[in-house]
C-alpha cells in the first residue's frame, strides 16, 4: 500500500474539481457547457467516494457501489439534459441560458 499520496491531497483535488464544476455551471452561457460543469461536479463527488473507500474502508464495497450509481445517474442526467437542450434549440433557436427566462416573474 503506497503512502506517498495522502488522503488530503485527493480531497483537495476533488474540491478543486467540484469548484471548477460549480464555476462552469454558474458562469458558462452555453447550456451544454453548463451540463459539462455538472458532470465535473458529479465526478468530484465520485473521487471523494472512491478515495474515502480506498483510504478508510477498503474491505467494504459500498464506496465503489455508490460511485457506480453516480455514473448511472450522471449518464441518465446527461441524456435528459441533452435532450432538453435539443428541444430548446428546436423551439427557440438558442442554447444560451440567459435567454431562457420564460419563468421570469
Amino acid at each position, binding site marked *: 500500500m503506497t503512502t506517498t499520496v495522502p488522503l488530503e491531497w485527493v480531497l483537495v483535488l476533488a474540491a478543486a474539481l467540484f469548484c471548477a464544476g*460549480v464555476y462552469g*455551471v*454558474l*458562469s458558462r452561457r452555453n447550456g451544454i457547457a*453548463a451540463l459539462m460543469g455538472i458532470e465535473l461536479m458529479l465526478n468530484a463527488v465520485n473521487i471523494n467516494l472512491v478515495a474515502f473507500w480506498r483510504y478508510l474502508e477498503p474491505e467494504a464495497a459500498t464506496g465503489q457501489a455508490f460511485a457506480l450509481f453516480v455514473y448511472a445517474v450522471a449518464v441518465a442526467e446527461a441524456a435528459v439534459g441533452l435532450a432538453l437542450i435539443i428541444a430548446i434549440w428546436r423551439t427557440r433557436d438558442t442554447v444560451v*441560458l*440567459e435567454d*431562457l*427566462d*420564460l*419563468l*421570469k*416573474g
Partner: protein
Amino acid sequence: MLIPILNLAWLIPLFPFLASVAILLFTYRNRKWSHRLAIGGISISFVLSQAVFWAAVLHPVGGGEQAFESTLIHWLSTGTERFTLGVYIDPATAVMLFMVPLVCLMIFIYSVGYMNLGTPEVDPRYSRLFAYLSLLATGMLGSVVFNNLLTFFIFWEIMDTCAYLLIGFWYERKSAYQAGLKTFLVTRVGDMFFLLGLVLLYSEVGSLAYRDIFNPEALEHMAHTPFLGTQWSMATVIALLLFGGTVAKSAQFPLHVWLPDTAEGPSPALALIHAATMVSAGVFLIIRTFPIFAAVESGVQMTVVAAIGAFTAIFSSIIAIAQNDIKRVLAFSTISQLGYMVAALGIGAYVAGAFHLITHAFFKALLFLGSGSVIHGMEHGRRELRIANCESQTHVGTHSPCSPLEEFNPNDMLNMGGLAKRMPRTFWTFLTGGLALSGFPLVTAGFWSKDQIMAQAYERSPVVFWVLAAAAGLTAFYTMRQVCMTFFGQPRTQVAEHAPESVPSMTVPLIILAIFTVGLGWAGIPTHFPVIGGIIPNWFHHFIGQTIETTIETGHATEAAHGFVWEPPALWVIFALGGLALGWLVYGWKPMRAGETDRVEAAMRKVWLGWLYACLRDCFYFDEIYQATFVRGSILLADLFYAFDHGAVDGLVNLIGRFARASAFLDLHVVDGAVNGVGVVVRAGGRDIRRLQTGRIQNYLLWVSVAMLALVLAFLIILFLQEYLYQISLAVLALVVTLLVISVLRSRKFS
C-alpha cells in the same frame, strides 16, 4: 227512510256544479252534450230536492225539532277553531228547495230554444251559457242547504261571480260588460257589510253555524250586549250589517242601481237572477237569519228594514211606469216586489215574506222568459225582414246595402204591439204572470202572497200598508201598460208583423210556470178567508210558521188566532184593480199607433211635468249621481293617492336612494380603499419580490451556492467561535437589516 234522504241533501248543489265543470272542460264544443249535461245536472238536483222537500213535509223535520242537521264534517281548521259543514234542513230551506230547482229546470229547458239551437243563428257561446247557469244554480242551492253562514257567504259570492259573467254575457256590447261590472261592484258594497256582520257575529257567538246562532241563549246574549257602548244592542248592529248584504243583493233602495242594467244579459239568465237565485238569496238571508232580526223586540233594525223595503217598493214601481224596454220594466218590478218581501220581513211578517218570495220566483221567471220569448220573436222577425229586403233588392239589381235594421231595438215596447195574435202561447202565459204580478184577486198566486203581506201590514204598520197599496196600484198599472203595449192593438213596426211564435222548448216551460203561478197560491189561502178559506188548509203558513214559532217567541198573534179582517184585501185590491183598469183605459182601450209618444208622457207634458217624466225615464238620475259622487269620488281619491304616492312615497324612496348614494361613497372610499390597499401592498410586494425570480437557472444556482457557503460559514463559526456566537449573530442581523433598508430605498428611488 226519511233521514237518509235529508242526509243526501248536500248532493243537491253538487250535480249542477259537476255539470258546469264538465261543460267547461269536456263538452264545450259539443252544444248538444252541453245542454244535456246542464239539464241532466239540474234534473238530478230537482229530483233530490223534491225528495227532500216531501220528506221534510210528510215527516216532522228532524223528529219533532224544527230543523234537521246532518252529520257534520270538519272542513276548515284555523288555529284552534274547527268549522264544521253539514246539511241544515228547516221548513224555509225545504220550500226553497221546492222552488229553486224547479224554476231552474224550466229556465234551462227554455234556454235551449232561446239560444237558437239547431238553427244557423245559434249563439257561439251556447255551451258557456249553460255552464254559467249551472254554476249559478249551484250557488243558490249551496247557500240554501248548508248549515252555516260562512258557506252561505261563499255560495253567495259564487252567485255574484255568475251574475257578472251572465250579465256581461254578450261582452262585445260595451253596455253589457259595463252592466256586468256594475253588478259586481255594487254587490261588493253589500258583501262588505255582510262580511262585517259575519265577523261581528262570529266574535259574539263564536260560531257561524245556524244551530249555535239560533240558540236562545246566544240570541239573548246578543240582544243584551250593547254595541261598543252605544244604546244599540249587538243583535241590532249584526242584523243591520247582514241587511246591508241583502240591500245590495236584492237591489234595495240605495244599491238598486245594478238591477235595471241586468237587462243587458240573455233572458234566461235574467229569469234565473231575478227569480230563482241571486235576488232571492238576499231575501233568503233575512229569512235565514230572522231570529237575529227579531232578537230585539221592536228594535231599530226592523224599522230600517221595513222602511227601506216599503220605499223601494213604491220608488221602483214609479220608475217602471216610464220604461220602454220590456226587460227593464220587469227589472224594476223585481226591485219593487223584493221591496214587498223586505218590508214584510221588516214588519215581522215572516211567513208572508217567504211566501211572496216563492210565488214571486215563479211568476217573475215566467215574465222574464215570456219577455225573452217576445224578444226572440222580434229578433226572428227582424231577420226575416232583412232577408226579404235583401231579396227584393237583388231582384231590382241595385247594389245598395240591404236595409240594415241594426239600429232597431227589439227590446223596445214601442216597436211591438199586436203580438197576441202572432204569439198566442207567449201572450197567455205572459198575461198570467202579469196578473199574478199585479195581484189579480183569487186566481193568481201573487194575490195570495201579497194579500198576506198586506193583511199583516194593515195590522202592524199602517204607513207600510198604504205605501205598499199604492205600489200595488202602480204595479198593476205598469203591468197592464206593458201587456197592452206588447200584445194588443196593431203591430207598430214591420218587424212585429213578422214575429213568429217561439219553439216548444220555450213555450212548454212557460206553460208549466204559468200553472204554478196560478196553483201555488192555493197552498197559502188564509183559513179565515170568506167562502174558499178552509177548503184547502193554509198549509204554507203552518209549515213555514213552525220555524219561527219554535225558534223565537214572537209575541205576535198569528193569523190563525183571529178571524178574517176584510179591510186590507178590499183596500189594496181596489188599488190593484184600479191600476189594471187605468192601464187598460190608457193603453188598451185605444191601442197606441206607430210613432205615437207614450200616453203618460204626453199627459205629463201637457201639465208641464215633462221634466218629471224624464226623471222617471232616467231612474231619477241615480246612475248619474253615483257616477258623479262615488265613481268620480273614487277616481279623485285615486288621484289623491297617486299624488301622495308620487310625492311622499316616491320622496321617501328617493331619500333612501340618497342614503344609498352616501353609503356608496363610504363604500367606495373606505371599504374599497381597505380592499385596494391590501391589493396595492400585495402587488408592491410582488413587484419587489418578482425580481428574485429571474427565470435564469444560473441565478438560482448562484443563490444556492451563496446560501450553501453561508451555511458552511455559519457551521464553521458555530464550530470554532462558540463563545462569540451572540455578538456575531447580532452583527449578522444588523447587516441583514441594513441591506434590506438599502434595497428598499433603492427600489423606491427607481420605481
